[in-house]
């Protein structure tokens, strides 16, 4: 059966062979077009590099090509008969951590590359930690450049063991290891003749079959109202529909629902996608629901089930990644955006800052600057309706917006 869409992020520095790996996936799945290859070969010749430098394909900005680094996430697309893939190609450098967080926030799976000669580096730790923080449940650790260590099984096992010792402190349920050579193509698309000791799937086989639909929360019904549709045309004079994206659970026509925060109950009378009525809606569908009663319900409110409600809280225990150029000012006020709701908020306390290379807590220096990850306590001006991020990414996440500059200055996940 077709598996639908898989969104994954690739992390690692250029030296780990990330661009080569992406180039290999695109090339072997016949996604690189002739004119793209010609343009890359031309540019490589101009720069005096040997052969086509596949990283030129992913590094799309002038500044990136000049410096040979990735600054911002680039999105790449390829498909096999089994599945369609969206790659978020994320920068590896620490100063662009916020761009990696952007790419990771929508990914179902993360690929972490490790150079078999170098083993685990700071970046390996940082990227793995961000994967964990953003709640990505599937990780593939590609031990790359195996050709340069003579396909040594012991070296591979050493790296696997070192990674496992680190990752035991992270909450990533599905971690898989694959020995590869991105440059030569071993175990990327085709099985390698050099790794008789490895009996797992190739990278592409794994990507084609990994099951991520189960990661969506189908238990807890959550429907944040995004927009109220009132046509006010002759044909639909009294129509009032609630548009939104299902964030959790399965809503069916006829279901008893409760509107929050009002607490008023009603019944779902119809669910539609465009002009087509459907019987039910589940994540991540965008639908319009109508209710039996004309209750007070608008953007920022949420439809749920009576016996399964999110927490309504004003005091948040959150992990944030600071994205702003300027350090966070203690006691500063923000707009907190959560689902379709905006409330005023203040960071009351920084509990600790994390050294993401060692996972050590820093408690004596609590200034939060760009790319820092910290545990904080936040107070909101009004209650918000949250679930634990690990249970629901949509209702467990928020951003902080600076009311002066209007910029997004932090990304946060809520643990309840």
């Amino acid at each position, binding site marked *: 059966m077709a598996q639908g869409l898989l969104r994954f992020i690739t992390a690692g520095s250029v030296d780990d062979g990330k661009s080569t790996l992406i180039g290999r996936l695109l090339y072997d799945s016949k996604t690189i077009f002739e004119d793209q290859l010609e343009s890359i070969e031309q540019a490589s010749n101009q720069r005096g590099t040997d052969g086509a430098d596949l990283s030129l394909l992913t590094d799309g900005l002038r500044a990136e090509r000049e410096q040979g680094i990735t600054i911002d996430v680039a999105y790449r697309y390829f498909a096999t008969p089994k599945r369609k893939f969206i790659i978020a190609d994320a920068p590896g450098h620490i100063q662009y951590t916020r761009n990696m967080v952007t790419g990771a926030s929508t990914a179902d799976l993360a690929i972490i590359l490790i150079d078999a000669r170098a083993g685990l580096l700071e970046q390996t730790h940082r990227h793995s930690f961000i994967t964990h923080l953003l709640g990505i449940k599937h990780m593939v650790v590609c031990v790359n450049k195996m050709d340069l260590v003579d396909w040594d099984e012991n070296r591979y096992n050493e790296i696997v063991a070192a990674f496992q010792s680190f990752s035991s402190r992270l909450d990533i349920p599905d971690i898989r290891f694959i020995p590869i050579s991105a440059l030569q193509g071993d175990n990327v698309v085709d099985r390698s003749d050099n790794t008789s000791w490895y009996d797992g799937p190739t990278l592409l086989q794994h990507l084609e079959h990994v099951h991520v639909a189960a990661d969506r929360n189908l238990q807890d019904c959550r429907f944040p109202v995004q927009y109220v549709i009132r046509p006010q045309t002759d044909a639909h004079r009294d129509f009032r529909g609630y548009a939104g994206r299902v964030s959790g659970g399965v809503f069916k026509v006829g279901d008893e629902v409760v509107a929050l925060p009002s607490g008023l109950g009603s019944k779902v009378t119809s669910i539609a996608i465009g002009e087509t009525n459907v019987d039910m809606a*589940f994540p991540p569908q965008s639908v319009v629901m109508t209710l039996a009663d004309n209750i007070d319900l608008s953007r920022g409110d949420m439809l749920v089930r009576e016996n399964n409600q999110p927490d309504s809280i004003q005091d948040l225990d959150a992990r944030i990644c600071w994205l702003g150029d300027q350090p966070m000012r203690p006691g500063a006020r923000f707009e907190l955006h959560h689902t379709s709701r905006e409330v005023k908020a203040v960071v009351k306390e920084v509990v600790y800052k994390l050294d993401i290379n060692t996972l050590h807590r820093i408690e004596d220096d609590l200034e939060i600057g760009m790319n820092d990850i910290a545990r904080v306590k936040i107070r909101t001006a009004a209650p918000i309706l949250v679930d634990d991020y690990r249970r629901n990414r949509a209702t467990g996440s928020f951003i902080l917006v600076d009311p002066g500059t209007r910029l997004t200055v932090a990304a946060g996940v809520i643990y309840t």
Partner: protein
Amino acid sequence: MSSDYNLSHLDELEAEGMYVLREVAAQFDRPAILFSGGKDSICVTHLARKAFAPARIPMPLVHIDTGHNFPEAIQFRDDLVETLGVQLIVGSVQDLIDRGEVAEETGFNASRNKIQTPTLISTIEAHRFDACVGGARRDEEKARAKERFFSHRDDFSQWDPKNQRPELWDLYNGKHQPGEHFRVFPLNNWTELDIWNYILRENIAIPSLYFAHQREVIRRDGQILANSEYLNLRPDEKPETVQVRFRTLGDLTITGAVESDADNLEKIISEVAAARKTERGGRMDDKRSQSAMEDRKKEGYF
């Protein structure tokens, strides 16, 4: 769709696009859809229809008219606007030329592509649009591969690709200072093939130019260009009649045709699936340099 709650990738892309459009309607005071008459902006408009049904699309369509149009595209635009009952706003490049605000390129490869940008910006300013929804896709071009869904533009309409706003989950921050605006791209994650498969699935009407037809063309620098009164012919260039179709629809003078016998959607899909050149490979405007698109986008291009 199936009982185990799996969605096809087109269903998922559609849901994402509708969500983005509803965010635009909810977050902005004066949004608009940039409508070129091409298949991508037709798909955006179709998504908007679905996102707001049974109400009308709550924002106008804006067409930046170079004056060098395929007549079929203009007819198509006017019919669609009437069917949808939405407002059409036309920003005219010719008007800016007449007012002396822009100068037209001259020479054999002269095009009005570059002066579309000031026309777009002046239209945005005149109508004080705070969000312009476009049909651009990340797979089109390497600078576009970096785009956000909500892409910030300063009060000179400029894009700062090295310092883009972080965009987390589907929490799109449309907050901005007066005079600034956003470009919004609901089709970011779609590929050319997705667009065609979606047009087939949803039975969306598109201009006849996309299907194979007989046309008088000239061949220039490996491109096939439609012959028209707007094209300056070199002495050695001779128009010939060929069976062609267009993979993209832009200004008449820069949009390359491909030789093709794909006269229905199924044939187009097999052609696109087997294609070895990108669709923008036929666009003279992208060929000017490695950074042609990035440079134009920074200035405020679509």
